[in-house]
């Protein structure tokens, strides 16, 4: 990302594995996004309270200290508009804890590809555009699934 350009959005990447955070940062910065990181849910809450701007949350579900689902629930209480991408190797775990994803939430299977992550974030962003011409959410979900393997509910 060129330093003189405003980021397309700022993403908070929460994962207890530093290598996964580093990978996501490289991919997202290459796609023009700003990135902030947290190693667990408690850190993420602190970042949310102190960061000047966060537009997207990328959340691992299976983390120590505070599980991803609990973290997201607390963060969403502060920022109901925040768009959330769950990145998980255990999508069945996500839907056990959250039978229904709400608008502005999606999930992406881990391991993710460079293209998959960028398209998932981009489409999550597009899915929130309220101005015309809005594509039906069901259409966005089909695109997301077809293009990236990411799934939304």
């Amino acid at each position, binding site marked *: 990302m060129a330093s003189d350009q405003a980021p397309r959005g700022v993403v908070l990447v929460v994962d207890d594995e530093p290598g996964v955070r580093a990978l996501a940062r490289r991919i997202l910065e290459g796609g023009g996004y700003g990135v902030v990181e947290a190693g667990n849910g408690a850190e993420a809450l602190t970042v949310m309270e102190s960061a000047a701007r966060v537009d997207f949350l990328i959340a691992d579900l299976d983390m120590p200290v505070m599980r991803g689902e609990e973290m997201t629930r607390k963060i969403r209480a502060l920022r109901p508009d925040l768009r959330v991408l769950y990145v998980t*190797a255990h999508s069945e775990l996500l839907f056990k804890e959250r039978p229904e994803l709400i608008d502005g939430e999606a999930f992406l299977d881990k391991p993710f590809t460079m293209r998959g992550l960028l398209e998932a974030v981009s489409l999550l962003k597009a899915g929130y555009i309220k101005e015309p011409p809005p594509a039906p959410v069901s259409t966005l979900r089909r695109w997301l699934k077809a293009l990236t393997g990411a799934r939304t509910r």
Partner: protein
Amino acid sequence: MTIEPATVHRLKNQLAIIMGFCELLLSDLSPDSKHRADVIQIQTAGQSALDQLPQLAAH
């Protein structure tokens, strides 16, 4: 041999990192780079290990 689910999860994460950085390297390397084939070897081995993980998971 079986592996506990938590260990499988950690291994999957590590392999995901290896695979992801291979992909980043490949996107940066020129098409005729002499390193491209090496990175593809790493990526292929990583994918193979990833594919074998479910068979090693303890039930």
